[in-house]
């Protein structure tokens, strides 16, 4: 049986994913420092409303409120014993909303990073990471998620652990990393490196790509980096709506719906097949993006110059691919 995401991917040229979860929940009264996932049990109506937003704005895929739903993250709130429950509830509410949409909408079970550093640099072993992701995956599966949606990952080891967990849960999956440090992930992975890594996975994702990071310009440069490698797996672009600003006790992102509409079209022209937003992307942004994607004919791949002209400058001169990559210090002598 084919999963819902594969079906949609096979029938459409592009799909629109959703926008921000955290930003929306703050606007509903989530307090800074509280665990959003607890609302799956405590405020199901607000979570339904969270999911309904992108569905009404035209998203084909939305992510569940389970980003921090692994044992390592929930431990902060002394809820490490509720991983299965909170993920199941998050997916169930999603299933409910998606099934009433009147068109195919994919419930993507969000899986965020553990927040720990993987061995050998840090304490988290591959086995432990797989176990944590697997526990979360089973909850999402039980609640009826169509796919697992791994996001905001920095370490290749963690991405691989999530892939392994998806295999163990028997779930199709998609996975994006966050390229927020000089065009690479925090751990130094380039866009080209990610394509190489994804190609080597035993349990390959249905789609891979980038989310969050710095701004929409950087994100598109990353997408161009992916597509330059000619990947066979569809590419996901989920960029932030600009840069966060602090106003009246709230985080506000400065990217307008018009800007995100341009970003969406450029993302598609850059070769992304699944296009959405991340932090700061509201339903207003999504509506503008949907309209732009429907009403703008496909164009040629944008150049880096066109991206900066339209969306603003990059956060770094190089993203670690192609020409002009800064070289490490020349050691006097190398040791073995």
């Amino acid at each position: 049986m084919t999963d819902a995401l594969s079906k949609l991917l096979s029938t459409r040229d592009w799909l629109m994913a959703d926008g921000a979860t955290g930003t929306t929940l703050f606007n509903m009264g989530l307090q800074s420092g509280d665990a959003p996932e607890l609302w799956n049990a405590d405020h199901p109506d607000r979570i339904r409303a969270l999911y309904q937003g992108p569905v009404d704005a035209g998203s084909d895929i939305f992510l569940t409120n389970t980003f921090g739903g692994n044992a390592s993250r929930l431990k902060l709130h002394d809820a490490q014993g509720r991983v299965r429950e909170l993920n199941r509830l998050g997916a169930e509410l999603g299933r409910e909303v998606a099934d009433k949409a009147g068109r195919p909408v994919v419930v993507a079970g969000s899986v965020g990073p553990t927040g720990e550093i993987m061995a050998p640099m840090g304490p988290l072993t591959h086995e432990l990471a797989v176990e944590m992701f697997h526990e979360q995956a089973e909850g999402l599966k039980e609640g009826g998620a169509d796919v697992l949606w791994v996001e905001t990952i920095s370490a290749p080891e963690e991405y691989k652990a999530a892939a392994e967990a998806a295999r163990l849960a028997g779930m199709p999956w998609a996975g994006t990393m966050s390229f927020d440090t000089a065009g690479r992930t925090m751990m130094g992975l380039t866009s080209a490196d990610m394509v190489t890594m994804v190609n080597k996975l035993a349990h390959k994702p249905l789609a891979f790509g980038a989310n969050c990071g710095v701004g929409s310009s950087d994100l598109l440069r990353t997408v161009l980096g992916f597509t330059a490698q000619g990947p066979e797996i569809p590419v996901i672009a989920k960029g932030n709506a600009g840069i966060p600003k602090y106003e009246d006790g709230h985080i506000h992102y400065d990217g307008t719906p018009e800007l995100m509409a341009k970003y969406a079209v450029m993302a598609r022209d850059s070769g992304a097949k699944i296009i959405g937003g991340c932090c700061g992307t509201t339903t207003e942004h999504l509506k503008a993006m949907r309209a732009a994607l429907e009403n703008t004919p496909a164009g040629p791949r944008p150049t880096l110059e066109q991206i900066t002209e339209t969306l603003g400058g990059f956060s770094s001169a190089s993203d670690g691919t192609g020409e002009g990559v800064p070289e490490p210090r020349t050691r006097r002598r190398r040791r073995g």
Partner: protein
Amino acid sequence: MSDEEDDIILSELDNEELVQQMHDDLYDGLREEIEEGVNILLERGWQPYQVLTEALVSGMTIVGNDFRDGILFVPEVLLAANAMKGGMAILKPLLAETGAPRMGKMVIGTVKGDIHDIGKNLVSMMMEGAGFEVVDLGINNSVDAYLEALEAEDADILGMSALLTTTMPYMKVVIDTLNEKGKRDDYIVLVGGAPLNEEFGRAIGADAYCRDAAVAVETAKDFIARKHNQMAAG
């Protein structure tokens, strides 16, 4: 690997070469070699403070600059910091004994709700690498935890870190509380984390936003120098 260049005998290098080699070894994150180098310099009669500044701090400055410039990334910096730590463990008791100059004391931790401590750990290590005393409160800190530690430790600097847009507003809660208690001006408040920027730092009333660990060290030095100047003038 076994070519001729593997056979570097640290004790056979003269002081200048040894310090250069230690900079390389820090860059490559070789902890045992750094420990050995520190011991050799001490045996040769170097003051602990000189070993700290010329061999370790200068070496970590190179690491910090390349991190800032997007040449090194977190894994390499973690390794370098680990090597630095090995050297520091030897020097720390000796520095206290010899009454070496003190740079200042920082209380640091990630804010309530945030367990992402990679950036915080880097800042912590680089600050120690630059000679600061660091009291690391770990993750998930409430206002009370920060305030108690600042007082108990008689700190000069408060460092707060957040990686999530859902947790970064908590920094303002901490700063507002310091203001309410009339203690804001007692401390230099530095903030950092991936989703933050300079404007955010200003908006919540921090003294500075620090883009990365290398910038945090420079900023801290700068503010401490200004504080000393003020005290001298006042």
